[in-house]
């Protein structure tokens, strides 16, 4: 009896010691310190470095099919960027983002065939056009949010799909709609800029535009509009009591979200030379929202990863000769992960990077 009791006591002590050591180890590994503040300069360097390295690797290793898909993926990144802006900053679920990409493509093709402006003007026209339409489509958000707004925007995306099937995209023909007659030989492709005529150069050009769009959105998030959006998201009454013009700032968010989507549409038009109505299904807008949740809507890296995945997975399935509908199953499963972890992939990686940066700063300190 005595022996048993002693054994028990010893075991208890060992367990106690182990628990204590584990706790000490845990505390040592993850100290509860406040992360070092990431300055705008460091964030800008991080954006350029991450997108630069990823783009460099893709440009150096991919060609043909994969290069085209990664160019499209970067356009997806811009679309997700706009979607994440609305959801992350204002809590608004917009399910018409891919339709806005289509609007941008339509406007840029229309402008290109009408006056043949420089390529930069063409993509800006696409951005401005989608921005204006985005602002109009955002009007329901002044009165509704959540599921109702999601449904209304989804219906708008479906309406665009129907409309674009009827009127199609301009191909250099006569009249406002710019259609050709019976012969498809009359179709005119939109020319890429001279310095980006090859596929690789065009991909790198799209990468640069993606970085500029990320900068644009980040600049908004970190300054006056971003602070106004944060107040609106917290409480509209509190925002009004702080002097914020709710309608103006909501419209601004929709305009900015539409602008980056429109730029993406114009770049897609530049990639293929022309666009097809079948490339703008309503389901893509839902996929973009899934990408937003999967990547994480609070950080730029989330939009980048989310956008890449939304194009990479379908492209991989096609390459492997697997039915592309499997992609929806993968996105559905991934969504479960995203719902469990609202930070998303980008949010988790950002926290990890901040911890590493914090450790680096601590080691540098005397």
């Amino acid at each position, binding site marked *: 009896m005595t022996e048993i009791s002693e054994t028990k006591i010893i075991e208890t002590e060992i367990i106690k010691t182990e628990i204590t050591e584990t706790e000490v180890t845990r505390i040592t590994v993850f100290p509860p310190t406040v992360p070092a503040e990431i300055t705008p300069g460091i964030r800008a360097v991080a954006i350029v470095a991450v997108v630069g390295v990823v783009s460099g690797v893709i440009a150096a290793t991919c060609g043909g099919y994969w290069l085209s898909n990664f160019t499209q993926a970067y356009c997806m990144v811009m679309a997700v960027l706009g979607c994440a802006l609305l959801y992350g900053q204002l809590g608004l679920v917009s399910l018409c983002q891919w339709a806005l990409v289509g609007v941008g493509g339509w406007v840029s093709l229309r402008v290109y065939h009408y006056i043949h402006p420089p390529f930069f003007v063409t993509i800006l026209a696409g951005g401005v056009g989608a921005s204006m339409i985005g602002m109009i489509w955002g009007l329901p958000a002044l009165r509704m949010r959540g599921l109702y707004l999601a449904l209304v925007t989804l219906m708008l995306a479906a309406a665009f799909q129907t409309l674009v099937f009827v009127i199609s995209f301009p191909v250099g023909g006569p009249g406002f709609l710019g259609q050709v007659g019976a012969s498809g030989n009359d179709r005119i492709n939109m020319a890429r800029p001279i310095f980006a005529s090859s596929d690789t150069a065009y991909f790198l050009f799209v990468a640069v535009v993606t970085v500029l769009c990320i900068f644009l959105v980040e600049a908004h998030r970190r300054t006056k509009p971003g602070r106004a959006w944060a107040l609106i998201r917290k409480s509209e009454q509190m925002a009004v009591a*702080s002097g914020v*013009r709710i309608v103006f700032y909501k419209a601004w968010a929709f305009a900015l979200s539409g602008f980056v989507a429109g730029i993406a549409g114009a770049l897609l038009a530049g990639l293929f030379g022309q666009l097809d109505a079948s490339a703008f299904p309503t389901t893509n807008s839902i996929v973009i929202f899934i990408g937003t949740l999967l990547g994480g809507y609070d950080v730029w890296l989330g939009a980048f990863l989310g956008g890449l995945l939304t194009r990479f997975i379908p492209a991989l399935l096609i390459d492997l000769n697997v039915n592309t509908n499997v992609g929806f199953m993968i996105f559905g499963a991934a969504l479960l992960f995203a719902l469990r972890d609202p930070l998303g992939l980008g949010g988790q990686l950002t926290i990890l990077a901040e911890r590493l940066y914090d450790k680096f700063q601590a080691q540098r300190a005397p």
Partner: protein
Amino acid sequence: MIKIDALTVQFGGITPLDALDAEFVAPICGLIGPNGAGKTTLVNVLSGFVTPVAGTILLNDTLLLALSPRHRVGIGLRRTFQQELVVDELTAMENIQAIADHVSADRTSARREVDAAVNFVGLSERRNTRGRQLNLFERRMVEIAKTLIGRPKVILMDEPGAGLNESETERLRRLLVEIPRAFACQLVLIDHDADLIASVCAETLVLDFGKRLAMGQTRAVLDDPVVRRAYLGRE
């Protein structure tokens, strides 16, 4: 100065404010009453979130009810909410800067006003700390600092002491007393803490079921047997 005349609010069959007359003249005025007395409804009417069915409100000779909520902010009306509403993702200073963006005359004065407000509430060393890392007292201080931006004329504070411990309430008390002098404005304090009201408010209005139960010098009002029975639950 706030002058309320025959103010009536109705929500369906309920009348949260019933022909209320009141005048807030002192630099710090109190507004007390039991739960459901109509205190927050009055604050919401003053800030423009609830539209009354009858009555008028004058704020320093301006007809308040004719103005939109945002224009009321423009003429110097500020308020805090019962529930503290500090944005977790923004730093203490960014939370305060967020109101300066819209009410300050220009960037230079915005920066100056934000610095003055941060120093006044004692958050200088925590200015770059994110909202989620601030404790309740610090979050309350951020809320108060926000009301001090852009030359406020009247500040409505809805239970700023809720959830604070004794020493924090004492610090809050010292801060509130200083606000009218330091920022040349009037303060209307809504709180359940009769001791806090008694120690900082010169005048107090007591509401009960949407009606004025008493108004006058705070000490006299709190000693009124009718008020003690209705509000404090004792004679």
